[in-house]
């Protein structure tokens, strides 16, 4: 690679990004391991600010550190490893995604990093998974791009007899820019509109004097039930920011503090973009009364999503976890395969068109009606409104309700763990589980399974098997045992 790389230069290409709000991100960098010179920074992205947050030299120094030691890298083929640094001496935290790739004929190690001030540690940690998931996917695509570009260049060199080495490898930068900027925007929006860790129940629907005061009883029941069934992952859309945010806060009551910090309120004036991976997010409809959800991003969320429209009081949900993960993986694979098969830059660039054109409305069948009723949430709502509002009684009752749910989830995990000898045996007795744990209502089972999935990832896939059938079919099969 070293022979093909541009000569070392102290100046590193830099993209300055103008953000509307405060940016907690200091910089993002793309570095690679040069076989002769060691770690080198290729590109820096930094928010455009009047005050220089970090000098280029400092950024380069830090980025080099992320690749230091990677000469000993021992990773599985195709692995994208995550490194996380808290360098108190420098007052920064760095998140680095380290990966191997073929670039210009040589296999080398690369690192895409984001740098934040150390003061943002508690802000960042709940969002770590979101950022990592998104950057990981763009790296997957970028890696293919790097590989293919080399092939194309070699062909061009053969055909044209000219060398344009200096241009090589540059095109991955725009691709990375296409994701680094949204990540910066996401962090910026979370800084301004993130849901606080503590929510006052007075700001939620649960403070109403009676059920149905501010929203329809059935709608509230469906919303909370489906929200819990989809692992606490919901999108709330509406025309009124106030109304949307009230539901957002209400749903966030059912999340843990860390999950709340990974949720976002609706912006009053203009709408945010949908962000994959947030737990609850409020989105404002446009002037035409619609909001377009990007299909791909909804699919790439770690959990299925509930779609709640507060204008028309509809609640729709995606299939359960195992189906969602399976669909997601198949979609990712097909996307990467399509990317791999693209024969020209135009074909590869087609992705951009798809990216901008992709849209999805919840009326399509990725979002379905909430089919499974539950008794847990219903009983909770029936009872909570009997308690006098304005006191701490309802908060306490809610905490008790959540405690019961979490304990049920833990019991379920232990039950399955015991029944299957920690996965050594297949799980066959779903009916017994339902009876023993009093989860005979499908909705109840879904809620507890969803909670269990969050603390024991892969439980759905393990219980419901490979999702070649729909979840309903699978469960029918299991019920026959």
């Amino acid at each position, binding site marked *: 690679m070293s022979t093909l790389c541009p000569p070392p230069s102290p100046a590193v290409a830099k993209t300055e990004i103008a953000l509307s709000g405060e940016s907690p991100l200091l910089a993002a960098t793309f570095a690679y391991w040069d076989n002769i010179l060691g770690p080198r920074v290729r590109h820096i992205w930094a928010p455009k600010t009047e005050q220089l947050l970090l000098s280029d030299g400092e950024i380069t120094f830090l980025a080099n*550190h992320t690749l230091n*030691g990677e000469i*000993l890298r*021992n*990773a599985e*083929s*195709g*692995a994208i490893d995550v*490194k*996380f*640094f*808290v360098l*108190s*001496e420098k007052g920064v935290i760095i998140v680095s995604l380290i990966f191997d790739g073929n670039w210009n004929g040589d296999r080398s190690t690369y690192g895409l990093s984001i740098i934040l001030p150390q003061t943002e*540690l508690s802000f960042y*940690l709940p969002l*770590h998974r979101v950022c990592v998931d998104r950057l990981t996917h763009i790296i997957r695509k970028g*890696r293919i791009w790097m590989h293919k570009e080399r092939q194309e260049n070699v062909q061009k060199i053969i055909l044209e007899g000219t060398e344009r080495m200096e241009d090589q490898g540059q095109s991955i930068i725009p691709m990375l820019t296409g994701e680094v900027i949204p990540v910066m925007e996401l962090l910026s929006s979370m800084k301004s509109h993130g849901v606080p860790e503590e929510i006052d129940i007075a700001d939620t629907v649960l403070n109403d004097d009676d059920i149905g005061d501010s929203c329809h009883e059935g709608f509230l029941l469906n919303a909370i039930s489906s929200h819990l069934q989809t692992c606490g992952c919901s999108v709330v859309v509406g025309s009124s920011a106030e109304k949307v945010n009230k539901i957002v806060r209400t749903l966030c009551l059912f999340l843990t*503090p860390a999950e709340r910090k990974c949720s976002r309120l609706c912006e009053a004036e203009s709408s945010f973009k949908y962000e994959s991976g947030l737990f609850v997010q409020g989105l404002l409809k446009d002037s035409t009364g619609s909001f377009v959800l990007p299909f791909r991003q909804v699919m790439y969320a770690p959990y299925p999503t509930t779609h709640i429209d507060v204008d028309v009081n509809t609640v729709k949900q995606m299939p359960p976890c195992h189906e969602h993960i399976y669909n997601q*993986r*198949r*979609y*990712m*694979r*097909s*996307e*990467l*395969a*399509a990317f*791999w*098969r693209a024969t020209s830059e135009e074909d590869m660039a087609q992705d951009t068109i*798809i990216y901008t054109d*992709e849209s999805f409305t919840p009326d*399509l*069948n990725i979002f379905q009606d909430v089919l499974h009723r539950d008794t847990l949430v219903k009983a909770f709502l029936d009872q909570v409104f009997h308690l006098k509002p304005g006191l*701490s009684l309802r908060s*306490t009752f809610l*905490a*008790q309700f*959540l*405690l019961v749910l*979490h*304990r049920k989830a*833990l*019991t379920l995990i*232990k039950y399955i*763990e*015991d029944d*299957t*000898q*920690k*996965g050594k045996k297949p799980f066959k007795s779903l009916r017994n589980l339902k009876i*023993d744990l009093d989860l005979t209502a499908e909705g109840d089972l879904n809620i507890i399974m969803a909670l269990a999935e969050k*603390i*024991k*990832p*892969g439980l759905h*896939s393990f219980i419901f098997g*490979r999702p070649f059938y*729909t979840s309903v079919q699978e469960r029918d099969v299991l019920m026959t045992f």
Partner: protein
Amino acid sequence: MISAPDVVAFTKEDEYEEEPYNEPALPEEYSVPLFPFAGQGASPWSKLSGAKFSRDFILISEFSEQVGPQPLLTIPNDTKVFGTFDLNYFSLRIMSVDYQASFVGHPPGSAYPKLNFVEDSKVVLGDSKEGAFAYVHHLTLYDLEARGFVRPFCMAYISADQHKIMQQFQELSAEFSKASECLKTGNRKAFAGELGKKLKDLDYTRTVLHTETEIQKKANDKGFYSSQAIEKANELASVEKSIIEHQDLLRQIRSYPHRKLRGSDLCPGETEHTQDLPSQAATTSDPEESADTDRYTCRPAYTPKLIKAKSTKCFDKKLKTLEELCDTEYFTQTLAQLSHIEHIFRGDLCYLLTSQIDRALLKQQHITNFLFEDLVEVDDRGEEKQESAPPKPSHDRPPSRSVEECPVPQVLISVGSCKSSVESVLIKMEQELGEEGSREVEVTESSSFDPQENLDYLDTDLKGSVSSGESIEVLGTERSTSVLSKSDSQASLTVPLSPQVVRSKAVSHRTISGDSIEVLGTCPSEALIPDNFKASYPSAINEEESYTGDGRGAIHCQAGLSPPELGEAEEGGSGVTPSQTDSCCIGREGGTLRVPLSTPGHTLSDEDGVVSVPPQRYRQKDPEFHVDFSVENANASSRDSGSEGFPAYELDPSHLLASRDGSKTSLDDHSDATSYGSSVTSASSDRTSSSAPATGPSSERHKKRAGQSALKFIRQYPFAHPAIYSLLSGRTLVILGEEEAAVRKLVTALSVFVPSYSRHAKPVKHWVSSPLHITDFQKWKLIGLQR
């Protein structure tokens, strides 16, 4: 499956389903696995089994200036834990980069070497091929003989679960910072001491050289200096310079920011001590006072020696060990803290997460905790970490005691988790035996809750507010009894503070106990008794009888324990003093001569009464269980036997976490990394097949059987629901039957539903053939009665 138009537009039908065969397929390294949770046939538990080590451990590594990165020690210090995992390679990986990257040594333009007090760096990284991920805490220690005076070290928490490390990052960081701070404080102290010695040596050398020079001067009558004299003078100058340099280093080490120490958990006493020493050393190094050797009083007498003025770097020298670099007390204390970290973070992430969520939610229920939870337990859980962190307790004592303090974290956790049970025993014992006084002392010692809080509680009780057990008891109706069981535990909380209140509660207790008694008859017909309930172990009765006569065996065993172990046994509620022996044995062993209390079934943790193991073994195990809390490296069999002490709570979710806490303190070092937490409570059938050697399979099996029996009971009998309701609501349930074994079995099965049922409090009478008295209903919540 997915029929959204835009998806179809993007992928095309065939593309989405399968990649075309005529195109080169996407290399797997560029793709994503279709099943993210490992491959075919994988499970959520198998994901973590790829690592070469059996469970999480802590590794301390150093970047040696002589040999490069090298592992120093692991916690636990057991080769079985890290197995075939290559510690050398991993040390190389985690120590290959100096993340602190601050200048230490001779800065350009500076006359003297400069010490920088660098902040610790924290890094999370992994080796995906080995399936090992680590939280790495980098720190720098000072060594006068090291290059640049620094020795880079790191402490790494190594786990197979990457998510665990990231999700627990802040907690890990906080705990490791404490350990690091402890290590660094000790190091500063040792470094200052080392400087003091060096200054003394230099001082002595200077004196010697000075004397020699003077002698040479006097001897020299030629008017010019000999080359030897010049050499001596140069040497003297070098010594002088070296003294100034070392004095400057002392000044620097003294200038370590005090706020850092105050902010940490380290005690101010140690801080002062650390600061005092260098100041003394500095003072004595002053030329005018160099003769005053008594100023080094805080250290053992040191005889200064003649040293060479110019220290030459030699690479064959032996570097100081970590223990030498730090004060031994601090080093021991650090190890204790690291053991504590290993204990609190070991096990499956899902249990860690759930316990954290649990704590957070319980805190929000402070106004109703008396109904559902043991408030003391809740508070203690919240404070568990602070209480059990080793630095704190040892700071309150002279550092030399820290060796004994090593197992403190385990002890405190165990006390916290067992406290409520101990107190519940107290209630029973007081009502029956009136021995509250002696027990009280014991319980109070093991309690750490806020007295004021309990006084408030007391007030609440006496006022008879809605939340008090008192008012509920006065009502004595079936409606009110729904919280009676909780009022029991509530009352028990007040016991250590006021025996009078306890007595009054005992009185009111009688009122309620007589009010509602559920009598459940077991069918005498064999046909209707499920197989599980049949007396398949006829030996049970004999075994119980043999127990009855052996009550005191346990005491003898405990008497043979070493003092710390005994202390733990005391805390665990085992009787030690003769006056307590009876009551304790009643509660725990049930092997005394008191007829109403001699329930042999209670001697065993699972109460099964069908154990075919010689009873003596249990008596031996029981004290060992307590030893377990205090002795970290106790053998595996004793630890497992300790786990037998827990009741079968498989069906009671509210006990899952509490049980886990218990298991945390008592579990053997051989439990596997992924789910040690469940091994005690879940009665998992694979427990016996796990790596833990010499487990108590029979007891575990019985626990599981109790749970299964309870399940079968629920499925079998239509009256199961009201029966369990009665138990849960605090009413006494009587099971009538002709066959003792069947009744015992059913009682055992249902005992999991008895509130306040634990290792210490067992309000269950498995079998009684004589007519019941009204007082029996005070004592027992579940009774097996001969028809």
